């Protein structure tokens, strides 16, 4: 009995490795991005191989997770969706309770490892929205829109309260994209955006003082040369001095002289821009566009509503990472803790991103048959 089960597990594992259900163009794009990320990290991290090795290890872990998830058929994922959503939201509540009166608190300590439950929501949020919209008449009615709005607002609010505005934004965007792709009427979108726009002054009131300062600093970086303004000014100097073709790999001066803060994590793209110039920026943007496009292609080919919405939402939220991080580097957006996907140093985000792509691989493997 145990033997046969063990043998079965072995067979499955072998299949995962030998006949992976992957979409080669997507996997190829991700692989190239990972290589670019590791090269930039090597340069930004003062040529520390340990740093690069650690990140490469996380990529491998993420890739294995991706391969495993790609074996799970979308209907199974769909059945799990509400439970996964409820579970990850419950963990957020636990973190909120544990963090009572302790300032910024995002981590759940499992003893062996610490992780941020908010990372889980990046995937479980679009799953939940897609699950909810799957059996319903589309385009969604106001009632469905309101239900989805509540589903988004609860975890996003909890994350924003931690306070982690960047992740809250990503989670909310993932849910909102699923709603957008479901065919929500344009006038309804307009009305909703108008309402959200009207709430900005109220939201401003609820922001933490340090978050408000980041917005203020964006408008006038010179006002705070020791704090946030420093980040913005130095990041722009790094980017601007890179020019068209860049200073060359490992020849950036701003991060090397430590003018650039956090140059291996949130600000790594400034190092990239300095060393590879506008040409490099355009190149990597094309790569990102290709990955997002391929995601949407897979979504269009998907078999059912759930898969379509989920695949599309994951692909489009990838864009939010790129836009928010790139905008921050270039001084267009305030300093918000959003990494450049697969380039910034940091394990949780790499693993959770690749897990999301695993879902896409699964959807691709179970696409609808043409003709």
């Amino acid at each position, binding site marked *: 009995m145990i033997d046969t089960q063990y043998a079965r597990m072995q067979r499955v594992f072998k299949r995962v490795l030998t006949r992976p259900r992957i979409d080669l163009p997507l996997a190829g794009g991700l692989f190239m991005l990972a290589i670019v990320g590791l090269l930039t990290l090597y340069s930004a991290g003062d040529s520390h191989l340990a740093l690069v090795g650690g990140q490469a290890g996380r990529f491998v872990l993420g890739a294995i997770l991706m391969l495993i998830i790609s074996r799970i058929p979308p209907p199974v994922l769909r059945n799990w969706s509400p439970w996964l959503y409820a579970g990850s939201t419950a963990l957020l509540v636990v973190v909120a309770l544990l963090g009572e009166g302790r300032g910024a608190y995002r981590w759940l300590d499992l003893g062996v490892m610490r992780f941020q439950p908010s990372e889980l929501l990046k995937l479980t949020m679009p799953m939940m929205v897609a699950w909810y919209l799957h059996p319903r008449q589309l385009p969604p009615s106001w009632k469905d829109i309101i239900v989805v709005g509540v589903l988004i607002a609860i975890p996003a609010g909890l994350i924003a309260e931690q306070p982690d505005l960047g992740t809250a934004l990503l989670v909310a965007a993932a849910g909102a994209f699923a709603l957008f792709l479901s065919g929500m009427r344009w006038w309804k979108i307009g009305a909703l955006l108008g309402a959200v726009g009207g709430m900005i002054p109220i939201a401003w009131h609820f922001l933490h003082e340090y978050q408000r300062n980041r917005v203020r600093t964006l408008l006038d970086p010179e006002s705070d040369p020791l704090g946030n303004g420093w980040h913005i000014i130095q990041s722009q100097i790094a980017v601007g001095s890179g020019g068209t073709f860049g200073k060359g790999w490992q020849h950036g001066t701003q991060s090397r002289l430590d003018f650039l803060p956090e140059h291996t994590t949130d600000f790594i793209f400034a190092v990239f821009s300095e060393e590879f110039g506008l040409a490099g920026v355009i190149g990597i943007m094309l790569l*990102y566009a290709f990955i997002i496009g391929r995601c949407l292609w897979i979504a269009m080919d998907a078999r059912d509503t759930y898969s379509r919405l989920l695949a599309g939402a994951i692909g489009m939220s990838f864009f939010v990472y790129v836009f928010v991080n790139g905008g921050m580097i270039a001084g267009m957006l305030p300093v918000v803790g959003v990494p450049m996907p697969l380039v910034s140093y940091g394990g949780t985000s790499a693993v959770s991103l690749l897990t999301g792509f695993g879902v896409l691989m699964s959807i691709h493997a179970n696409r609808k048959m043409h003709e």
Partner: protein
Amino acid sequence: MLKRRSIKDSRGESALFRRRALVGFALILFGLVALVTRFVYLQVLHHDEFVVRSENNRVKPRAIPPARGLIYDRSGVLLADNVPAFRLEVIPEQVSDMPALLAEIGAVVPIGSDDVEAFKKQLKQSRRFESVPLKMRLTEDEIDRFAVNRWRFPGVDVVPYLTRRYPYGTHFAHVVGYVGRLDADDLERLDPVRYKGTSHVGRSGLERSYEDMLHGTPGYELVEVNADGRTQRVLETHPPVPGKNLYLSIDIRVQKAAEEAFDNRPGAAVAIDPRNGQVLAMVSVPSFDPNLFVNGISHTDYTMLTTAEDKPLYNRALRGVYPPGSTVKPLLALGGLEYGVRRPEDTVLSTGEFCIPGQSRCYRDDERGGNGTVNMVRAIQLSTNTYFYKLALDLGIDRLSTFMGKFSFGRPTGVDLIGEASGVLPSREWKAGRYKQPWFPGETVISGIGQGYWAVTPMQLSHAYATFAGHGTPYAPRLVMATQGGVDSRPAPLANPPTGPSLIQKPGDWAAVNQGMIAVMTGGTGKTVGVGFPYVIAGKSGTAERYSRTTNAYDERRNNAYLASRHRAWFVAYTPAEDPKIAVAAVLESGAWGAQDAGPIVRKILNAWVVQQGGTLPVGPPPSAAPASPAPDPSEVIEPSIEPPMESGGDDIPAIPSSSGANP
């Protein structure tokens, strides 16, 4: 209108999705193009400008730490000063081989292992171009030696800074506290922008609780550095705003007198002005030299302080908890009056032993045979246990703890220091929470004389009597009286409004208890303490037992040394009795009797206060600690003497009855 389709139109949905996905992708491409456009703006259109800025990126902001606020006593004597000193700083980015540097520089300027450890911690937290202190307080000799060898150590420099000095070190160590070097934990806790360039932070005492005011706001300057990173010139300076100066309500003369009164015997005293809660003296003996901590205390010094038997680092005034003994009696009497359980003229017959009606347990008076018939004033004056046993029973534990709780027993007084102990206010709830046991009537009886579970800090007792002396108006004790924004500005008083309405409903009640406490000083247990003092003092002694009596040794060996090892001596007093301006509580850890041993300490504090108020030193029998006079006659030392399970856990039955008759 079209009728709603009842089944999903999957083909239509698929087409709808396709359109949306294409629109979405178009929007994304638009977003990416906008992003790239911004990069074109920076990298192509403004490239030249940024290249120049990048090459000239030798202008670095450098934080200028604010000068820490000074701390003065009531009359302007400087208690915490900033003095210029020199330290060795390292700019990490200019050092190619840090371990080698640390090894080599040790030959020029001796660097301790503590210094290296602190340096490495701070190194991890700093940007590479920000200098990190390596060794504080260089001697002149060390500065000279380094100056000669400076060329060998690029990136290392001698830098002037302000360091903290406490000219009256030990007198205020437990009040002012001390600052210490910032460590990794501090850097995580504090606002990094406000603490740029700062090397010290308040660690204990007022330095810690007023950290926010004392610290100030850093300024910065933009400096141009050369290729080696050495400053070439300062381009712009934005000066820091220094921290606020603090004025204590303590006068150094009273404080010194209070400390000297203890003659190095462990104990603590707190004096408070009943009219506003200002602390007039606060000492914990023994004390220590706070200057040792400022630039990192050496390992040997620290071990010596922490292992010393009389624990000089322990703030007894704030954290030491002791059974209050008879000092609670006047307040209990007040409770009896306020609740209408007693009238001042009600009398009780003290026969030497009190038994709970219907129970065989009995509790002793101090004097064999008792004090006879006593009313309230006489009971306070003679500290008659029987009177208060009965009063406590009549009040009941609930009313007793409610009333005493109003005087901040069992909770912090709210003094402006961090780390105050709460002590224990005996109550049903406290016992249920702590021992999961019901309350016994016998525990109520001994609570009436300040024994049993009772535990109070000198701060609490002083606060309670200051509140009483101020006719019941409660003020949170305050050590800081005023703050000063700049050298030229006038000190602004810190507001300290009462924390609530008066705790005493009927003025007559106050007068009766006050009369009892005056009687203590004129013909009661505190008779010797007040002799020759210009004002009428009201007071109460207290002698609490530290251990349960297990043998007859207590009754056989009633000499001072033996009793001192078993007792805590308390004395509380306020004066002038008709219009109180100061209330004092003092505890002597190894005092044989309250009035005999703690009384003189209180008197010395009051003497110093009179002088500080502009009076002349009161004359009278020297209230010396070791009385040359014959041993006090028994009527003076009648004090509680039952067997409480204090300080030793509460496993046994709380009050051991005197096995009637067996004890002599």
